[in-house]
């Protein structure tokens, strides 16, 4: 080793950080192409109906505009995700408010809003449904037929494929039931969705813009334009936040802009403003989870029945895979002798819901972690003791039958979390102080896991490829479609390559994701980049090094100067050098989609989050006053970026629990503005403490596991558990706003409540048999 200190585990400066602090990083709306026009979208004003007429108000000089309808689509009128149910542009019917019907383009951006308003569309309205319950009734069928009516997807997950024997319920000391709900949540990236498209009859379509998954858009364009993949080029520009909101949606806006570019003969920029972005693009799926749990009197979980339903909105988009992750995470980090999860994604006339950090898991984990506190109360154990008696540990099998062969130590994580947060002392202190204070304080926690990488056989299907090439200067450049949108992709992948190649971090380059030049390393989603793509970068770097050593130009023990010299010699002799690594499924990873069993994820991150809250009984507002996180995420590649991921996820989780409410009015988002959709500001955030435990995973780069989604899972249940401690009232629905707390805390006793205090509500759990 020639003197390059390890860079993995250090915190070098973010690769594109200097451009960002200078304000020089180029986001899509900062780019102007010669002859560029601007696009706009004419959308449905009703949630469901038949289009009866479209009229263009003569006050607008329409000859100046390009107008695109579904009739202009050269290929299929579909935005492909997992199914082809989602039209690119509506033709005869609309199924949600804000559904795109026509597209307009004009050289002057300022003229577009008036033009959009001057397209008059009349409809024959049809009855709409907005809730999971309405969808289940099937009085209105808005999607599919027969068994699939209103149902995008169902799963049945049973441990060992065995139903729960009736005698388990009969013999249980307690049967605890509960229902839990979560609302829609807007990703609220500060940069709205936006793209610029160009069209050339010879070379095809080029779309550049803000996105997570360039090859998803390539695939969408292939169908809409009926072009081969090599004629659909997609370039990711600097992306101002995404969080899942730019996973599937760029396929829509990218296809729209490209259609306008084709018809107008100009490059077309289509960037939404905030109101349009919030009203029309995807959000986190609302959910309803019902638990029925058999428990012994010593607090052992005997069996669990979980009904998990999510509202997918009007088209399937990614709902089946969101449902899948939610289903697999529903049983949590606990050992269940028997468990049955019945899951379904239902259709409503709400704009389609889509990917958002956590991807179904925050919903089902919220339900379970609230339910665990309820079980503890029923059994008469502390929340801590109940969990300790049921944690999964090394050598156990999960609900999908996966053997946990890598070390798992939730007991230790919980011990560390209660110590670092001062949980026991604070619990006593708050119990003592609350009766004489108008500010009721509480402390609560959640224990959970999050699977890294695509679910089940997903990574095998993705078949990701990573390349590293040499520049003419003899520097390695990483070629991936994995995108940077703040999480640190550029930086950590360069760290991995630097360490593997024994070169300084500054001498590793990473290419802009441009599908014309980079291979498909898979989408940037699912907490997969550090682990899966990082490992491929490590292998490609090893292969690059081996090639140079084998060529005889590079000694085994080399300096960066030796490397550069050898690289340039190799290039002079052979012209180019590109090494590659393709995903190989690790030994012993098997997944069966039919029985929903096997290795659901190659690795899991494990965590315990502790929230402290203060509930003001004069204003009924709840505030998070302190937050501790302890997590085991494998090797931490970059401590500053990793902590930043946790802190940012916790802040989003606080918003999910206490602030962020989507108000729907006849299927329209009524609060599609930052003024009335409230996300946490710097003044709303408590100190967030981040502790990492590192147990290197054999599957990830230098032992890394996934980290991005994990911190979204724990905050909401930890906060509501703390609020129950503070107030004695059990809240089981988020977002929990002051008016909700007011309503419950001022309710007259005996009018129905889920509180476990029998003095208020009477027993809500049954003692099945003693």
């Amino acid at each position, binding site marked *: 080793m020639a003197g390059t200190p390890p860079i993995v585990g250090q915190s070098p400066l973010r690769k594109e950080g200097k451009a960002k602090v200078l304000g020089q990083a180029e986001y899509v709306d900062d780019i102007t192409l010669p002859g560029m026009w601007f696009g706009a979208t004419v959308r449905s004003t009703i949630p469901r109906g038949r289009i009866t007429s479209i009229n263009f108000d003569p006050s607008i000089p329409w000859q100046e505009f390009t107008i695109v309808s579904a009739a202009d689509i050269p290929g299929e009128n579909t935005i492909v995700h997992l199914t082809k149910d989602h039209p690119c542009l509506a033709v005869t019917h609309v199924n949600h408010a804000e559904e795109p019907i026509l597209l307009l383009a004009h050289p002057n951006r300022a003229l577009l809003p008036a033009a959009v308003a001057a397209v008059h569309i009349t409809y024959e309205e049809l009855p709409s449904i907005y809730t999971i319950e309405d969808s289940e009734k099937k009085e209105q069928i808005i999607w599919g037929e027969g068994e699939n009516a209103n149902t995008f997807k169902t799963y049945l997950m049973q441990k060992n494929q065995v139903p729960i024997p009736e005698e388990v319920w009969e013999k249980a000391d307690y049967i605890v039931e509960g229902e839990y709900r979560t609302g829609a949540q807007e990703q609220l990236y*500060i940069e709205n969705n936006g793209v610029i498209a160009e069209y050339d009859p010879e070379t095809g379509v080029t779309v550049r813009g803000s996105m997570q998954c360039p090859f998803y858009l390539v695939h969408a364009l292939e169908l809409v334009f009926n072009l081969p993949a090599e004629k659909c080029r997609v370039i990711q520009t600097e992306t101002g936040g995404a969080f899942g909101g730019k996973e599937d949606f760029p396929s829509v806006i990218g296809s729209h802009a490209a259609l306008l570019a084709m018809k107008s003969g100009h490059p077309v920029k289509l960037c939404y403003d905030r109101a349009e972005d919030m009203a029309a693009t995807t959000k986190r799926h609302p959910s309803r989870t019902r638990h029925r749990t058999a428990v012994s009197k010593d607090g052992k979980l005997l069996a669990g029945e979980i009904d998990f339903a999510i509202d997918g909105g009007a088209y399937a988009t990614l709902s089946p895979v969101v449902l899948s992750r939610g289903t697999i995470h529903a049983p949590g980090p606990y050992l269940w002798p028997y468990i049955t999860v019945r899951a379904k994604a239902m259709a409503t006339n709400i704009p389609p819901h889509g990917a958002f950090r956590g991807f179904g898991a925050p919903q089902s984990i919220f339900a379970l972690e609230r339910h665990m506190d309820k079980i503890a109360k029923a059994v008469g154990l502390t929340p801590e003791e109940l969990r300790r008696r049921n944690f999964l540990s090394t050598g156990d099998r999960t609900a999908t039958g996966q053997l946990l062969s890598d070390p798992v130590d939730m007991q230790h994580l919980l011990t560390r979390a209660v110590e670092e947060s001062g949980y026991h002392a604070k619990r006593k202190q708050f119990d003592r102080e609350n009766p004489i204070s108008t500010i009721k304080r509480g402390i609560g926690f959640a224990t959970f896991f999050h699977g890294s990488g695509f679910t089940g056989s997903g990574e095998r299907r993705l078949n990701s490829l990573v390349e590293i090439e040499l520049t003419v200067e003899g520097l390695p450049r990483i070629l991936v479609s994995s995108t940077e949108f703040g999480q640190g992709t550029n930086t950590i992948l360069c760290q991995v390559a630097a360490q593997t190649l024994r070169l300084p971090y500054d001498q590793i380059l990473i290419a802009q994701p441009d599908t014309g030049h980079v291979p498909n390393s898979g989408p940037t989603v699912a907490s997969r980049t550090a682990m899966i793509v990082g490992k491929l970068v490590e292998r490609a770097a090893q292969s690059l090094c081996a090639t140079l050593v084998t060529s005889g130009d590079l000694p085994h023990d080399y300096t960066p100067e030796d490397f550069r010299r050898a690289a340039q010699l190799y290039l002079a002799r052979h012209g180019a050098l590109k090494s590659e690594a393709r995903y190989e499924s690790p030994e012993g990873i098997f997944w069966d989609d039919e029985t929903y069993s096997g290795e659901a994820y190659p690795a899991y991150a494990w965590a315990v989050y502790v929230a402290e809250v203060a509930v003001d009984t004069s204003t009924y507002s709840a505030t998070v006053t302190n937050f501790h996180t302890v997590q085991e995420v494998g090797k931490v590649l970059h401590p500053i970026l990793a902590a*930043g991921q946790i802190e940012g996820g916790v802040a989003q989780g606080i918003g999910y629990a206490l602030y962020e409410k989507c108000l729907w009015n006849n299927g329209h988002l009524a609060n599609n*503005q930052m003024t009335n959709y409230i996300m946490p500001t710097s003044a709303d955030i408590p100190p967030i403490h981040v502790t990492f435990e590192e147990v290197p995973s054999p599957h990830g780069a230098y032992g890394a596991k996934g980290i991005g989604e994990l911190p979204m899972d724990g905050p909401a249940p930890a906060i509501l558990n703390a609020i129950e401690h503070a107030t004695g009232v059990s809240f089981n629905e988020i977002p929990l706003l002051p008016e909700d707390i007011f309503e419950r805390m001022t309710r007259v006793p005996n009018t129905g409540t889920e509180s476990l205090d029998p003095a208020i509500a009477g027993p809500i759990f049954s003692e099945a048999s003693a």
Partner: protein
Amino acid sequence: MTTIQFTINGEKETVEAPPMKRLLDVLREDLHLTGAKEGCGEGECGACAVLINGDLVNSCLVPILQAEGTEITTIEGLVTEGKLHPIQQCFLEEGGAQCGICTPGMILATHHLLEKHPQPTPLQIQEGLSGNLCRCTGYMRIFNAVQQAALAGVAE
């Protein structure tokens, strides 16, 4: 169209623009200064923040007419002789920028805060930055960056 004169990042500038055109659009379209970003268009997010006569202002809410005779500083004006401003350096080193879209506004808000409170308390930092939304960081690393910048004594 109206003729408006102001000073931007130390240089005199004259623009011809409709009087109600937003300062943000004049900066981005007429002057090609794209460091100020549009996040919400209604003064909630602070991504378009600039300094006008030393005050922190959301440029999406300012008709260009009101800029007549003012001194405006944008993120592009913080660099001196090609060197990062100490606040920019602290944001870079402390992980205060993730996706980067809020960063120009956040750095200008920090500049404004440290002018007012050269050694701010944690509460002053929280309140001083509360008009600038960040969806990535949870603000912790931004607070660290501001504290480091205060220690570096950038406001002297």
